């Protein structure tokens, strides 16, 4: 396996009353783009935040490790952590307008970031993300549309040419056309700078189109990961299959949608077995009591006791 830029190993994160990550593993190689998908509440945002050690105070890391370029993020001293964030990491959040300082013109915010880096000009950075530099630089965040604001946020995150960009649903509040434009910007810039991307998303088709790899999360674990086409086209984990099959866009008119039956788990401690077991049509006895270990199926790694048995059985209803 090629040298990993990001390694998350067995990460367990607890928020007082809930366990958000229950042993999540993720590996991202340099230059790779990884889409992280999964059920709402499965721990995507928590994973994303943990990569930059940006978890809220009440979150506790119970176990596991996060390494970026070999550096143990969770154990760094503050100054080292800041250096790491500055030099290697970039973040884009879901709500674009809220992630810009409302009291400062956009140009000034960019200049603050660039000034620190000592390179690039504001106009250039804005042009890079496809914005009318003159107009946007002198605007306050609340005067921008969501799409424009998100591109500004991307410009801020990419200004330092990070090695790894973590984007948490950066396009959820944007319309289809703007979404495509924003994603184009992100992926073009990343490709140009050799930046790896961890893209937390609900948008399976877009992930399939743009990412090298996909990681599917469920119940605080990455239950399946592998090349995007393979994971979404020929799932190895029953949950992936169910997820891919419930997309409304994929449904024919008049056909009832098929959500994954049952309710997502709310963990308060380690899941005794496979967290998907109660909802899994293929569950056997051991699934409830034995935590699955990663299994290599084809090009994917899956956390499923039955992954090998199910090859060819899972299909995406399209």
């Amino acid at each position, binding site marked *: 396996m090629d040298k990993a830029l990001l390694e998350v190993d067995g990460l367990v994160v607890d928020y007082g009353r809930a366990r958000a990550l229950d042993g999540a593993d993720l590996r991202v190689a340099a230059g790779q783009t990884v889409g992280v998908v999964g059920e709402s509440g499965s721990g995507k945002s928590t994973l994303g935040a943990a990569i*930059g050690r*940006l978890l809220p*105070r009440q979150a506790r890391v119970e176990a596991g490790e996060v390494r970026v370029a070999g550096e143990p993020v969770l154990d760094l001293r503050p100054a080292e*952590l*800041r*250096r*790491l*964030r*500055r*030099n290697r*990491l*970039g*973040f884009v*959040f879901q*709500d674009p307008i*809220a*992630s*810009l*300082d*409302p*009291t*400062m013109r956009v140009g000034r915010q960019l200049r*603050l*970031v660039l000034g*620190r880096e000592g390179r690039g000009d504001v106009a250039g950075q804005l042009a890079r993300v496809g914005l009318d530099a003159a107009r946007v630089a002198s605007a*306050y965040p*609340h005067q921008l549309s969501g799409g424009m604001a998100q591109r500004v*946020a991307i410009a*801020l*995150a990419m200004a*330092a040419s990070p090695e790894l960009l973590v984007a948490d649903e950066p396009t959820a509040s944007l319309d289809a056309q703007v979404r495509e434009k924003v994603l184009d910007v992100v992926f073009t810039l990343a490709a140009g700078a050799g930046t790896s991307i961890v893209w937390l998303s609900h948008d399976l088709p877009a992930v399939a189109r743009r990412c090298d790899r996909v990681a599917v999360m469920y119940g605080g674990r990455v239950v399946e990961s592998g090349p995007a086409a393979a994971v979404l086209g020929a799932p190895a984990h029953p949950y992936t299959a169910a997820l891919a099959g419930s997309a409304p866009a994929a449904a024919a008119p008049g056909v009832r949608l098929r959500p994954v039956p049952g309710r997502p788990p709310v963990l308060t401690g380690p899941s005794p077995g496979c967290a998907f077991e109660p909802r899994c049509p293929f569950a056997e006895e051991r699934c409830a009591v034995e935590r699955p270990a990663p299994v290599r199926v084809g090009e994917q790694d899956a956390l499923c006791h039955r992954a090998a048995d199910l090859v060819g059985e899972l299909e995406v209803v399209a």
Partner: protein
Amino acid sequence: MRLLLWWGGRALSSAVTLLGISVLIFAALRLMPGGFAETILGPFATPEQKAELAARYGLDQSVLAQYGHWLAAFGTGDFGTSMISRQPVAAELAARLPVTAQLTLLAVAAAVLAGVPLGVVTAVRARPGGGGGAGRLLSGLGVSVPEFALGSLVVFVVSRYGLQTTGYLLPAAVLSIFAISATARTTRDAVLGVLVEQHITAAVARGETPWFIIRHHILRNAAGPVLTLTATITAYLLGGALIVEYLFNLPGIGSYVVQAVGRRDYAVVQAGVLLAAAVFIVMNVLVDLLVGLVDPRLGRRA
């Protein structure tokens, strides 16, 4: 044009407010027990003396007529004449204003320079074990020592060692203790409100240093309430720091007006109150303007 309109509107509403205040204070003064006659002429005054005094200051006219005359004179810049000193009130206020202004300036400067950092530190360190507790105690201590107690102590102790209590530094220091604490506490509250916002997380994620985030992002965002407080403190102090003026025997506006209230020296009280009101109103306008500049979101709403 729009600029003129905006200022015009604000000026008009301020003028109406001032007019309302003038009516109220005029009425209140005349409703106060203890007339000018008993107070100013003393118990031994004869009815003739009282009548003469009333005639001299037009106090024998109807209250409405008095108000009319006073207002007309006020419009021409004549604030009336003190019944005690027989001097024009405007001149006396002008003579006392520099005292009050210097005190205010010093105290407010201290409040901002010391209070804001203290507030930021206590907020940023608010989590348990962050050392914010010490700051909280410190800023709590400041508001818990009443001005008159601290002032008496300072005046007494300092003079005991033969040191002069003249000048503005000492009284300004006494005034500022309270102001510093108040500023610190308001700053803390405002900063805590900013810390939960996402753009702060975004800045942290960019690897900015705490100091950088405070300087560039937190201070501006927390400026609204702090500016409001500062303006209010400034207005309070410009209206007269009564106790400190007395303790340090500074001839400022506060003691002048309060003494005048005590003697029912109408013209002085009226002018003093309107001055304080005008200061307060102007400060409010200024703050609205400033806050709008610092935080464009609020400007939009104003």
